[in-house]
């Protein structure tokens, strides 16, 4: 509900829908596939793990097919309007976002933040691009008869480094999630409190409730 009428002015205990069911589903499936890819990649890549786990052929097959499946939920998701809406928001960087990225006190609330902060936007774009590169290079590596050798070597080189980068990105993403249990909880049940939304995503809270964020801060707790 974008325009609640004034009679039902939101209270501090109100719940706001942050992630719809399709968005949560897409996140869960993508996240699951990503974790399997990372675990199998670690075994294939790291010598000590490779010797402990062995079964190279099976591990390779799991890695390859989970990798091919990884973009599928992200693409099927386009059927859901709420997913498309979230992607639109993630795509757009406002001048506030650049200030937010540069600021040392970005969490203070002084810089207006919409539904997604600039870090989340950056993470989404970098993750999507990395998944694309890993898919393309992985395909070149897997179908060995299709391309020339130097392309396969180049693809292997990129695949190695992008895996490392994306792995760090995912670790960072999980670390930030673990620091904010309400944010993480909303990925499971969809809702956040109005209080949380005003603190972390003031512009978005304002947009949903039509009440400027500033005026809602109680002067004293």
């Amino acid at each position, binding site marked *: 509900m974008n325009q609640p009428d004034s009679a039902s002015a939101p209270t501090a205990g109100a719940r706001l829908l942050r992630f719809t069911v399709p968005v949560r589903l897409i996140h869960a499936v993508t996240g699951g596939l990503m974790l399997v890819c990372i675990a199998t990649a670690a075994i294939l890549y790291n010598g000590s793990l490779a010797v402990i786990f062995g*079964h190279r052929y099976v591990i390779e097959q799991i890695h390859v097919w989970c990798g091919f499946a990884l973009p599928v939920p992200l693409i099927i998701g386009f059927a859901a309007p709420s997913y498309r809406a979230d992607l639109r928001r993630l795509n757009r960087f406002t001048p506030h976002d650049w200030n937010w990225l540069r600021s040392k006190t970005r969490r203070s609330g002084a810089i207006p933040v919409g539904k997604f902060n600039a870090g989340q936007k950056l993470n989404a774009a970098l993750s999507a691009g990395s998944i694309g590169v890993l898919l393309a290079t992985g395909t070149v590596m897997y179908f060995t008869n299709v391309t020339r050798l130097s392309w396969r070597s180049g693809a292997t080189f990129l695949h190695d480094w*992008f895996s490392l980068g994306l792995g760090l990105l995912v670790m960072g993403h999980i670390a930030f999630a673990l620091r904010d249990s309400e944010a993480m909880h909303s990925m499971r049940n969809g809702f956040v409190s109005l209080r949380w939304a005003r603190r972390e995503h003031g512009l*978005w809270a304002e*947009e949903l409730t039509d009440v400027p964020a500033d005026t809602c801060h109680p002067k004293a707790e």
Partner: protein
Amino acid sequence: MVGKVPTNVPDGLEGAPVGRRIFLGLLGIGALGIAFGSKVQNALANALGPLEERDPTGLLSLLPLGDTFRFYSVTGSVPDKDASDYRLTVSGLVGRPTTYTLDDLRTMPQIDIVRDFQCVTGWRVPEVHWRGVPLSHLLDLAEPTTEARALRLTSFDGTYTESLTLNQARLPDVIVALDMLGGPVTHNHGGPVRLYVAPMYGYKSVKWLNGIELTADVIPGYWEHRGYSIDGFVGKSNGRSDEPTG
């Protein structure tokens, strides 16, 4: 509130589409990298590979620098074997089937070779020092019968197998390796005893070697069942054009 002028616009309707630019930019880097990445890789490997080999912390080996061994195993945990329980059996179409201990192999004539190790997946370790018993020596002791045309090689990992023709097995640079890189072959490298087939891709160099069986025909090995070339000469098989190691 004065009037009905919206106080804010939902974000997503304003601002530059930076997310899309980053996404497409990364895909562009991907395309360039596939085309030219092998050159960058070679430069990196030349610059940092020697450092990695001598890095006491082992941290550099976590980076994908190339030119270093990667450890492959096709089964679950592989048992550790040493001089007390290691055995190498030579059997099949031979006049004198024999089982050797590690000490038996140590007392045989050894040769030293320094040659690159090239993996079919692309990595290559330059100038690896190998030392061991020429496979031809073991064949001479076993006296293959006239029907014997090929070797089936097995690993004590319980799963891995490989094949060589008898002529390939008699090449002077095919050895049953007991030492590599200046010391006994370690467990991860396939110790205590592995094969080293210098002119062929790494998958021919069976790790944890425990059986040499003479057969009438070539029986394709583990990876050969999965599409790899049976005659795995470096640069002349598997659709690759690497510099030969032979």
